[in-house]
């Protein structure tokens, strides 16, 4: 039956994150942005809070860890839960969402391709972080290879029971603090995607360095690092999935699986930021505009607000559709890309229009006006995890007969 009602657990999660966002996160948001870090004390508290809520029906747990094994007749709710949580947390501050401890983007490839031993070894460090917070990360992009992931040049050469890695990775979320990073390398660039290998490279491995920490337009509280591999020796045990996995194109497919799993969540975050900006502008109009007298101007602003909101609603409904499909194990690569393509565009417009509507007030960076921060934060949502253009390639390949690439 067609239904758009959140269930009790989804309501609870949304409300809890909303209250936390409003009362705790937003008041500190700008300070963290300026310090280029999310307060570690806050992350600890957030972690403890979600631990304390652990239990059979703890929405936080599903939101953070995904669904447990389930009765196939009772589809998972994990993806719907995650989308609702992601939007709400990004509404408060997207940089925090990206800074939460845990495997991060390194999780999906490990979950999808890791051997049982690797999963145990690398996931177990996140099981109890009451002593120390830990992160995982995902290293694919290079200075010379962004959207065209087949063009990566980081090399891996077999040497006895090790691989020796050489290359540079960039724009790695939480790359500097990560306990391990899933690094993509190639045995031979001429092989293209078939030559790709994925390694779990641990912090402190000789020859594995953190390069510069990036200074960014937005999401400044979240760490983005460059990683350098110089004759870095990685044991074959760290080759994701083991050697037999790479007899096929599986190496490259690992990367693709990650993005199919997470694109709709990135879209949900974008909507969270866009909604924050929209609500700010809406309330600004409510509080400051003289609504009764100059009707023509009011009508023009009202129309603009309505357009912003309905674009966000259109994007959200596509996100919900994509996560609903994921929960029912229906392949959703096209739908996830559709949601992200629209969400990126809609949320950027929302942030731009919100500033425009508020006039010069909209550009001020004060504790009460986060508009300028959201304007800076949102742009990357049409870039990372596949640019808007890449999403359209993914979508059109599934629409046009026989289209392999351009």
């Amino acid at each position, binding site marked *: 039956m067609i239904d758009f009602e959140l269930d009790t657990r989804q309501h609870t999660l949304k409300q809890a994150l909303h209250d936390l966002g409003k009362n705790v996160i937003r008041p500190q948001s700008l300070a963290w942005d300026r310090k280029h870090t999310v307060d570690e004390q806050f992350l600890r508290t957030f972690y403890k809070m979600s631990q304390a809520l652990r239990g059979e029906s703890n929405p936080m747990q599903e939101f953070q860890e995904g669904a447990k094994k389930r009765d196939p007749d009772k589809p998972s709710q994990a993806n719907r839960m995650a989308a609702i949580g992601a939007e709400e947390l990004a509404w408060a501050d997207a940089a925090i969402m990206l800074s939460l401890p845990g495997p991060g983007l390194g999780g999906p490839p490990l979950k999808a391709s890791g051997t049982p031993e690797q999963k145990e070894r690398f996931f177990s460090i996140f099981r109890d972080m009451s002593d120390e917070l830990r992160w995982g990360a995902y290293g694919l992009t290079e200075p010379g290879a962004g959207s065209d992931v087949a063009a990566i040049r980081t090399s891996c050469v077999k040497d006895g029971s090790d691989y020796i890695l050489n290359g540079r990775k960039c724009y790695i979320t939480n790359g500097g603090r990560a306990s391990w990073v899933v690094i993509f390398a190639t045995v031979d660039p001429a092989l293209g995607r078939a030559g790709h290998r994925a390694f779990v490279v641990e912090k402190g491995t000789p020859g594995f360095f953190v390069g510069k920490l990036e200074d960014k337009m937005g999401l400044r509280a979240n760490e983005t690092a460059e990683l350098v591999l110089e004759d870095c020796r990685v044991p074959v045990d760290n080759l994701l999935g083991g050697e037999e996995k790479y007899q096929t194109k599986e190496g490259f497919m690992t990367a693709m699986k990650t993005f199919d799993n997470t694109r709709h969540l990135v879209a949900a975050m974008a909507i969270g930021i866009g909604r924050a900006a929209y609500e700010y502008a809406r309330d600004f109009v409510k509080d400051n505009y003289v609504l009764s007298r100059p009707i023509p101007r009011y009508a023009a602003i009202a129309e603009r607000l309505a357009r912003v909101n309905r674009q966000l609603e259109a994007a959200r409904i596509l996100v919900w559709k994509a996560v609903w499909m994921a929960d029912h194990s229906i392949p959703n690569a096209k739908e996830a890309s559709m949601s992200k393509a629209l969400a990126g565009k809609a949320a950027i417009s929302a942030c731009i229009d919100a500033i425009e509507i508020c006039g010069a007030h909209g550009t001020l960076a004060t504790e009460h006006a986060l508009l300028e921060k959201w304007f800076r934060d949102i742009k990357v949502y049409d870039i990372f995890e596949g640019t808007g253009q890449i999403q*359209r390639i993914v979508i059109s390949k599934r629409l*046009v007969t026989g289209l392999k690439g351009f």
Partner: protein
Amino acid sequence: MISFEPSEDQGLIVQTVAELAKTALSPRAREFEKERAVGDDVRKAVQEMGLAMAAVPEALGGQGLGLLTAVLINEELAYGDPAAPFGLPGFGPFTLAALEFGTEEQARALLAPFTDPAAHDYFGAVAWSELRANRERPGLSTLAKKSGGGWEITGGKCFVGNAAAARRFIVFAQVDESAGWNGIGAFSVTRDNPGLSVGARHDTLGLGCAEFSELTLERVKVGAADRLEGGGDIVRATLRFFAKYALLVAARQVGLSRAAFDVSREYCDIRKAFGKPIGHFQAVAFTLADRHIDAESARELCRRAAWAWDTGKDENRALCYTAEAVAHAHEVAMRCADDAVQLHGGAGFMRDVIVEKMMRDAKQIALSGATAEHMDQLAAAVELGAALDPALVLPTPETQAVFT
């Protein structure tokens, strides 16, 4: 719980209607356009299936399946021919007007003729837009004056759907000239009323198979019982009426958008240029991707709006969801149809290909019920917590006039 899966019953209805659209509407869309009417046999078939009464409560002779099922039906019919629903009995605004403005008793009487499976020739019509908008005061130009125990209505209406065929009209007129939009009233008028005459049929851009005409009311006398009070709050009832009808119209835009997209996609597969199918060029493929995003998002927003009405959500929330869905669907349909013509190139401009009709239909459908601009004002007013000023949120005749 969030779910996008129609119920089993809805699935079966959609399948049946899709089959009808494929076999009876789509291949004959040009014929209907030329004949300026939907074929008799098709009207018969649709009437026998009782599709028009899906959202009417069972107590009033309908099927009680809710607005959501009606949205699904309208979408599928329009996929075959977006103009056809405007020329099918019971699919016009009359049905919703009877429900929103009439008492239960009035609604039952007004709708009874439609529930007859053999009544494929029975039409109702709603007369709202004015031949001449009132520049002196807010409100309608057509006047209803108390006369004896009843009312006497005088004025000129236009853009009235199925006026020539209609056996019964719901006519809007000003009952209190000093009360602005709060002073409007709705009246049921029969075709044989001596003061009523149907004028010239409008020659329109699109929707060729549907008839829209002028209506002249010259001292039309009706009884006190013919006034439809709208549950006491006429502005609210008018708002609900236009929102719900606009939602059904928006569902037709979704059907049109999907059809325009599908035709374009097929054409991009077979049309070759520079040695390959044009769909293999990025500018073309990305256009298809964007229109697919458009059509899919409009479709789900329409369903959510209908769901909000059916599940008895707060009325302002349902109005807001509806306004968003309608405004989005109108914009989306115009983009999908425009790009469908564009991707066909010169061929798209020719009447041999259906896309030029879709483009003409899309523009006219966007002016039926309520426009995107009216709906944006409505959504913004709800979101801003402002009073729903009828002059801003209703499709009042002195702004963008609408077809009903």
